[in-house]
């Protein structure tokens, strides 16, 4: 993946997904958002078993089926073909969101447009006039899942920080994010502020801070 000259590389998208997967405990029920979060499914750490929930009515979502075995009626929330593992089950939308809203999903991994110092998340709309707003299940997920992990490039393509003092885009949820996995660092949303827990190889704290729109707490 090519990056602008002055943006440090750090982790690739796959490595970001792998890093996030490491923080998901064995036995978790996990909902993966569209985009980079979908890659997390490739990195179940050895000895762990996760069960993937997709909000369109499947618990026990399995990998993309082999070519020719796709069923247009077996898809994920991103409308991509998936499979069902042994032990899977299907249910309707009200039951699916009962799982979400009722706090039965352990971990939800989402993409982001902006994350604030306090863990506010904006990931559904730029709020621009003329844009077609579309929210899907994001607002249900951020308030329903027990733990919200965000995977995102540390900045926009034009190097604007995505981790900011205060979100300028319309919110998906307030104080909902628990941890952020970017190409530069792993950052926890802690009571005292955004705490850098881990740096990508070759990345120092100052670099991460320079690409961030709010003050970070240094690596412990």
């Amino acid at each position, binding site marked *: 993946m090519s990056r602008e000259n002055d943006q440090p590389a750090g982790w690739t998208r796959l490595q970001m997904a792998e890093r996030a997967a490491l923080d998901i405990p064995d036995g978790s029920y996990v909902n993966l958002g569209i985009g980079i979060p979908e890659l997390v499914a490739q990195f179940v750490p050895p000895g762990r078993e996760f069960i993937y929930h*997709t*909000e*369109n*009515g*499947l618990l026990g979502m399995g990998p993309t089926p082999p070519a020719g075995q796709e*069923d*247009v*009626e*077996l*898809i994920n929330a991103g*409308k991509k073909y998936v499979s*069902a593992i042994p032990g899977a089950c*299907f*249910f*309707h*939308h*009200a039951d*699916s*969101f009962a799982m*979400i*809203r009722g706090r039965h999903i352990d971990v939800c991994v989402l993409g982001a447009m902006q994350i604030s110092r306090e863990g506010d998340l904006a990931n559904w*709309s730029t*709020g621009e006039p*003329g844009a*077609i*707003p*579309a*929210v*899907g*299940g*994001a*607002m*249900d997920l951020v*308030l*329903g899942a027990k733990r919200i992990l965000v995977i995102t490039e540390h900045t926009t393509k034009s190097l604007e920080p995505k981790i900011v003092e205060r979100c300028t885009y*319309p*919110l*998906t*949820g*307030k104080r909902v994010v628990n941890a952020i996995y970017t190409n530069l660092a792993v950052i926890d949303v802690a009571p005292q502020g955004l705490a850098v827990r881990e740096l990508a190889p070759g990345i120092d704290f100052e670099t991460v801070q320079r690409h961030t729109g709010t003050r970070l707490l240094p690596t412990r």
Partner: protein
Amino acid sequence: MIDKRFESAAAAVTDLPDGATVMIGGFGEAGSPIELIHALIDQGAKDLTVVSNNTGSGRVGLAALIAQGRVRKMICSFPRTANSMVFPELYRAGRIELELVPQGTLAERIRCGGAGIPAFYTPTSVDTPLAEGKETRVFGDRTYVLEHAIKADFSLVKCKRADRYGNLTYNRTARNFGPIMCAAAEIAIVQAADIVELGSIDPECVVTPGIFVKRVVHVPDPAHESRLVAEGRSYP
């Protein structure tokens, strides 16, 4: 004798009036009752309020109904998807209304419509623009938004198997909004790939009890929306 079978999709939708609220099942193309929607296009009812998770793709099915100018308002969670151009065009031109509802709130509003619950509280959308102007209330240490049930005059739903009582089973993730939309409608019309004898469906495995279904139409080989879109087809 109770026999909810109708001879055709056309016969099943004849009395759907102008101005009706119509729920249309499906999440993307999975579960979208494309033959019933096409029958509704032929039938001519207009000024409809349509409740559906998406707005269709290409120029077939729900997107075609919208393209015909027959939908006054969409109530949905995700009006733009891959290959959806009809709704965005009309929306930008100010020719169709949109009520955007978070997906779980949409599902619960529909479920409550069928279950006789007029309103409920949910945490979803609190502190976001989608809660603006809505009544909020604190229970325990959290804030919740008051949301109202949605009911429909008609629902159009696709299932896999039906019997003459209207008992239904679905295929995989095509189940999605089908069961709750059947219950929330005065008249639920269902297209079924198979119609089977009473007792053929295991009573432990019926997903939609027949009490929620008024009409069943046999559509043995339903079209795939994505295939029609890929072929550039449009309806009518």
